[in-house]
């Protein structure tokens, strides 16, 4: 589904290279965890895939189902099926959560040449998905993420994912700022979305999240490249030994 080849990317204004020849293949139905020390390029990878301004891809490619996504603007990537769950979801004063969800869903459908969702169908969809994530009516009526707690913001990200039904979900440190209970709710939400035609990239520092969202493949990212790939046991190994070995291996 996702095929990244020799990806090089730098921060636009500084010219500092963060991703240095990254290769990654993620097949439909798989969950890949990406771990690594601070500054390895984990968040940059998620930003570059989603199309966040401020980065420049200097070499390499990233395709989703054979289509190059790096030339698309962020909204086109989203319509193509890319979804980034933000580490720090953004507060948008004045735009009600419900209005936002509907605008996003309909915009994606329009880009894909589908008709707009009927309001009753939309309401039913939101009610069902919000219920699973313990998101109440007040959170849907309030402006997007404004005044939400850390846990509420992350649950709201998963709600968007559930409604937009992307092909490729990238979770950028979704566990940061979550207590144990919130982590469980969020993980259950993610697990409910696992399906044979959807893939996940789970970026995290900690093994803890992977106890809840079981990965098929674990990668270690260091200095802008994947330096080791293994099964779930690799995450346990990292938890025990830390990243010291890999930092040197990449150097």
């Amino acid at each position: 589904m996702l095929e990244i080849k020799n990806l090089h990317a730098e921060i636009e204004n500084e010219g500092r290279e963060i991703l240095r020849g990254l290769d990654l293949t993620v097949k439909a139905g798989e969950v890949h965890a990406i771990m690594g020390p601070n500054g390895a390029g984990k968040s940059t990878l998620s930003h570059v895939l989603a199309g966040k301004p401020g980065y420049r891809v200097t070499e390499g490619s990233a395709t989703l189902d054979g289509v190059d996504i790096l030339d698309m603007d962020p909204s086109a990537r989203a319509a193509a099926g890319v979804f980034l769950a933000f580490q720090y979801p953004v507060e948008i004063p004045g735009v009600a959560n419900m209005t936002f969800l509907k605008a996003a869903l309909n915009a994606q459908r329009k880009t894909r040449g589908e008709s707009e969702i009927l309001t009753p169908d939309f309401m039913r969809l939101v009610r069902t998905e919000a219920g699973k994530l313990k998101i109440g009516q007040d959170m849907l009526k309030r402006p997007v993420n404004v005044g939400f707690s850390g846990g509420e913001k992350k649950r709201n990200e998963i709600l968007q994912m559930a409604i937009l039904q992307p092909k490729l979900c990238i979770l950028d440190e979704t566990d940061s700022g979550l207590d144990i209970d919130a982590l469980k709710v969020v993980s259950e939400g993610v697990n409910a979305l696992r399906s044979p035609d959807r893939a996940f990239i789970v970026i995290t520092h900690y093994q803890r999240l992977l106890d809840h969202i079981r990965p098929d493949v674990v990668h270690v990212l260091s200095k802008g490249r994947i330096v080791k790939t293994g099964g779930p046991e690799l995450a346990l190994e990292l938890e025990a030994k830390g990243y010291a070995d890999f930092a040197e291996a990449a150097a």
Partner: protein
Amino acid sequence: MPTSPKPRREGDVMNVIIPKERRKTKAELELEAAFDRVGAALPGAGREAAFARFTGTGLPHRRIEAYHFTDLRSLLATAPEPAARPSLAEATAAVGADVFAASEPARVVLVDGWFSPKLSDLTGLGEGVTVASICDTMSSGGSVEGIGRLIGGRAVESDPLVALALAFWTDGVVIRVAPGATMARPLEIRHLASGKPVTACVRHLIEVGAGGKAEIVESHESPDGVVIHAHELTELVVGEGAEVTLIDRQREGDEAVRLSTLVVSLADRSKLDHTVVTLGARLARTQVFARLGAEVDLQTRGATLVRGRTHADATLVVEHAGPNSVSRELYKSAVDDEATSVFQGRISVERAAQKTDGRMGAHAVLLSDRAEAKAKPELEIFADDVACAHGATVSEIDETLKFYLMSRGIPADETERLLIHAFLGEVTDAIPHEGIRGAISAEIDGWIDGRGK
């Protein structure tokens, strides 16, 4: 220095005494000629004195502090002829669709500054509510009780726009709500234009008695491509414990000039909820001078949407004269192309106004590299136990917010639309009347959709 064309020495202009220090501008000379021609025939007293105050200073310019950002000497190239009363056919032709129709307001219609009883509908306003033409009242020998009371001897009297309005007004309405009476439906004051290039000048007096309630929306419209100067002076007297909602929305044509002044006095325990929405005109200035008694609640908000090369100015002076009053001033503008928005606001708290709670905010979002926003919020406090604050921001559309929305599939232009609407929503969502709020919200969306076209 604004350039001053050499005055033509012909006709009645010959008699004008030109001070040695400067040449008068074309617009000033045209105003003087017009006053000589029409001033004497207009009803009411005090016009000569008002015009003398105007000629004493002339059009205000950048070295006059209150007009520093809106230099009328350079922005007003001409002053069109004062408008004659339009015929019924002309007036009728000026009436287009009313965006507030769904709210079923009673209606006062003025065309080119003249009240048109045939086009107005003053039914259903309820017991104790009266509306009358000021011109008709005075022309038939009657007097309008209380008119000018908020202006005479006050600082506002020396404002050049107030002086011009007092010299040139042709008509307007006096609206009275008796003590304890409530307007049974909203009243719309519709200012329309026949499409002739004229100066239309109106004044209104709105008096809401103690405990009375009124809901008034003013709308201003004129066609594109015509140089129309629209002046307005409104006195609003809010009695003890009275509650007033006033919405002033203008969508003048792209060559129009709109210069409005609202003078308000708020008696003890009264409430005013005021909103100004600026969607049109090449040059607009809205001045609000409010004076508050004790335990008053004043909310005043503005939404300014400007593009092209237009210039819109909101100027606000709020005087807290009595204790325990609350005032909230929130003015927002969206500025596109090469347009300019100006906000000047001053809250002044007199010695007696202890426990004043005042908060003023002015925020602008710039939608193009050449757009400009100027803000000058001021506090002037003479009481020692008050809570007052002000803040001003000028920014572009937040890239972080934009990326977040786009990352969910919303295209760039739709993202900007949502964010501009949300930015101004803080002003328009607070309009109490649901129908009027909805109509204005739709007009704002229409403005946003018209960007870049």
